[in-house]
């Protein structure tokens, strides 16, 4: 229960961000949808185009829609100089998402007005604006507001996904909880979002009923209560803004697994001790996070040499680790102004792993052995591995053809292997569960998989900040793989789980920082 109480204590600031984002997206969507609905009700052709577009947007999975705004905003920097990460992409994606119910109900409400009433409005001499304000708006109102209810519920739900583009929301708890199997975090996040969605839905419902039954006190009261409740929910943000004063906080980025959360806290603790104010952006996708540090939306994070080597530099050769690190450091500084401060001292490579007993029985020790057996085996991977160049390189080198290949989130990938649902997984070499679950890591005689040294990357704006770099310097070469594995396991294990912050403290003590 104390874990749940602990998780609940993290809700208020995230709820505040969640509310602010949802309300802003809804307000923007209403501002777009209202005039568009009026125009559509008058011109059927406009209605077809507008509703067609809004429906098309709905068919894009919300996660993908959010992610698509990152490259879009990045390429539109000259036009719209906002950070392509965080609030802006989340706002725009959610706004687009909310358009359909608003538009559809707005048009339906206007078209549902009795034709005689519309004719009477014209015949008594109302101007277009008078007709809209006195007749169309009040009569279409209840149906339009029902659309607002739907849009509000959708938006609040979909806002949990904005975590993936670096916008704080209740999704932070859900994503972190799913990655580290902390169900109390998942529960707290879901509960917060559900309570928010239900209260907003109920509040708008009361406004709707008050309008439909022409009870002024009811709809006015409900509107005021709703506005006050939402304003109150965003309080932590204002308090924080007031307290923080001028200086921009340092943003420490993390991808979506335990090791990244731990390292982010390790970095954050050091920066705080050096006097910086620190914020965390957890759960960023691999594709997004390097762009984020290059654009300055994230100030510092840990990436892995092979990831930058293959994904960003598009290299397919595999030099030795030191040469590779040097080449990466040169490349990131030359092309993006991003400083590679140094390697932490351990690798987190993709490593094919099997249950020890199973590997012995089948006589598999290397990727060549695995390739020979692959048509009868099932592969479990993390969510991105099957799309990554490393997988293509492995298949080129070893001619693997698995009977099935299924992507899982990392936690579930290990469970799939344990339960026999898959026979081999694309594990991570620094993962504590490799030792804990007694997995056999297969060797790579063809050297198809590049080195994955963990390394610190620093945004251009901090690249020459001596105080900043001095705070990070002690981390370089300091974290051996055994220590990292042990720290990861403290978060990933099923019992006596620690939070990433606790594990980061433990790791710091273990390596003497």
């Amino acid at each position, binding site marked *: 229960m104390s874990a749940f109480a602990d998780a609940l204590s993290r809700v208020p600031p995230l709820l505040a961000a969640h509310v602010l984002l949802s309300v802003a997206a809804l307000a923007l969507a209403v501002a777009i949808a209202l005039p568009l609905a009026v125009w559509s009700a008058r011109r059927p052709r406009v209605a077809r185009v507008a509703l067609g577009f809004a429906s098309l947007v709905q068919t894009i999975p919300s996660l993908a829609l959010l992610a698509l705004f990152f490259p879009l905003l990045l390429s539109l920097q000259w036009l719209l100089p906002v950070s392509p990460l965080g609030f802006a992409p989340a706002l725009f994606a959610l706004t687009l998402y909310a358009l359909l119910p608003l538009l559809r109900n707005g048009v339906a409400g206007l078209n549902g007005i*009795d*034709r*005689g*009433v*519309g*004719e*009477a*409005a*014209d*015949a*008594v*001499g*109302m*101007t277009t604006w*008078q007709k809209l304000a*006195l*007749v169309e708006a*009040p*009569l279409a109102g209840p149906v339009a507001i029902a659309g607002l209810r739907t849009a509000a519920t959708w938006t609040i739900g979909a806002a949990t996904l904005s975590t993936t583009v670096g916008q704080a929301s209740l999704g932070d708890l859900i994503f972190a909880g799913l990655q580290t199997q902390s169900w109390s975090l998942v529960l707290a996040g879901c509960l917060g979002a559900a309570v928010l969605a239900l209260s907003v839905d109920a509040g708008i419902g009361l406004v709707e009923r008050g309008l439909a039954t*022409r009870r002024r006190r009811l709809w006015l009261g409900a509107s005021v209560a709703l506005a006050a409740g939402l304003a109150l929910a965003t309080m932590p943000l204002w308090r924080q803004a007031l307290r923080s004063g001028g200086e921009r906080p340092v943003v420490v980025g993390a991808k979506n697994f335990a090791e990244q959360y731990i390292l982010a806290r390790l970095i954050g603790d050091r920066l705080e001790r050096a006097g910086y104010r620190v914020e965390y952006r957890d759960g960023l996708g691999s594709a997004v996070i390097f762009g984020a540090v290059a654009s300055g939306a994230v100030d510092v994070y840990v990436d892995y040499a092979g990831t930058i080597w293959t994904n960003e530099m598009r290299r397919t050769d595999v030099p030795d680790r030191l040469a590779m690190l040097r080449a990466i450091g040169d490349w990131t500084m030359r092309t993006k102004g991003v400083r590679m401060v140094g390697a932490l001292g351990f690798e987190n490579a993709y490593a094919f792993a099997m249950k020890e007993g199973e590997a012995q029985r089948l006589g598999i020790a290397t990727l060549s052995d695995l390739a020979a057996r692959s048509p009868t085996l099932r592969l479990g991977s993390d969510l991105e591995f099957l799309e990554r160049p490393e997988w293509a390189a492995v298949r080129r080198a070893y001619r693997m053809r698995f009977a099935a290949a299924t992507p899982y989130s990392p936690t579930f990938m290990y469970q799939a292997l344990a339960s026999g649902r898959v026979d081999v997984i694309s594990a991570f070499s620094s993962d504590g569960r490799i030792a804990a679950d007694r997995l056999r890591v297969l060797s790579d005689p063809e050297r198809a998989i590049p080195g994955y040294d963990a390394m610190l990357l620093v945004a251009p704006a901090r690249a020459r900040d001596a105080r900043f770099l001095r705070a990070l310097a002690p981390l370089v070469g300091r974290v051996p793989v055994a220590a990292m594995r042990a720290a990861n396991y403290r978060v990933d294990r099923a019992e006596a789980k620690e939070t990433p912050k606790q594990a980061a403290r433990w790791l710091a003590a273990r390596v003497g920082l």
Partner: protein
Amino acid sequence: MPAAAPAVTFEDVARRYGAVAAVDGVSCRIEPGSFVALVGASGSGKSTLLKTVNRLVSPSAGRVLIDEQDVRDEPAPALRRRIGYVFQSIGLFPHWTVAENIGVGPRIARQAPADVARLLDMVDLPAGLAGRMPDELSGGQRQRVAIARALAPGARLLLLDEALGALDPVTRDALGRRLRALHDELALTTILVTHDMAEALLLATRVLVMKAGRIVADASPAELVNGGGGADAQALVRVPRDQAERLRELVG
């Protein structure tokens, strides 16, 4: 607002929808103070012609004048605020009370508020109805409210588009008489569109018969009852006359 009832003049008015001519070149003058019935079968163009007066329909050709002023000379809302318009589907604003419905004309024109009690009395409704919502009224009461709404801004030209068409015969007869009385009391110019020749004969001072977008007869009720006005008009007059004769036979 003109002091006297206005005259309405149609000059070669036509309204075409694609290849179909709903109104096909109508010219005629409606004298101030007259009660003119436009009679014809469905699709004869009578409603379309009527709506060119308050610009709910714009003519494809020709023009409409009120007191020698082209109706297009001023913005449509300003024109319509001087013209009462009552139509079959009534069109009361469902979210407003009877009083608010009646007062809408003066309100949107920013005139002095309507005298709702007097207007209700003019259409034989009790003043107590003022606070009711439209859905609490009978069909006949609603149409009376619509008439009061049309007269509220002090209109001197009243357009009635099948205004009595959806009412039961008793209500219809009473409201018809009431309309005629109001026409006389307020010195209005009234144009009534109807497909019912008996209604036209009993209420109007002049009957125009329309067929396929043209006026095919123009006569007084007395002339029509006495066999005048031509074949198309007589075909319509025959219906109520036959009914009257069959009823008389029943008296025996």
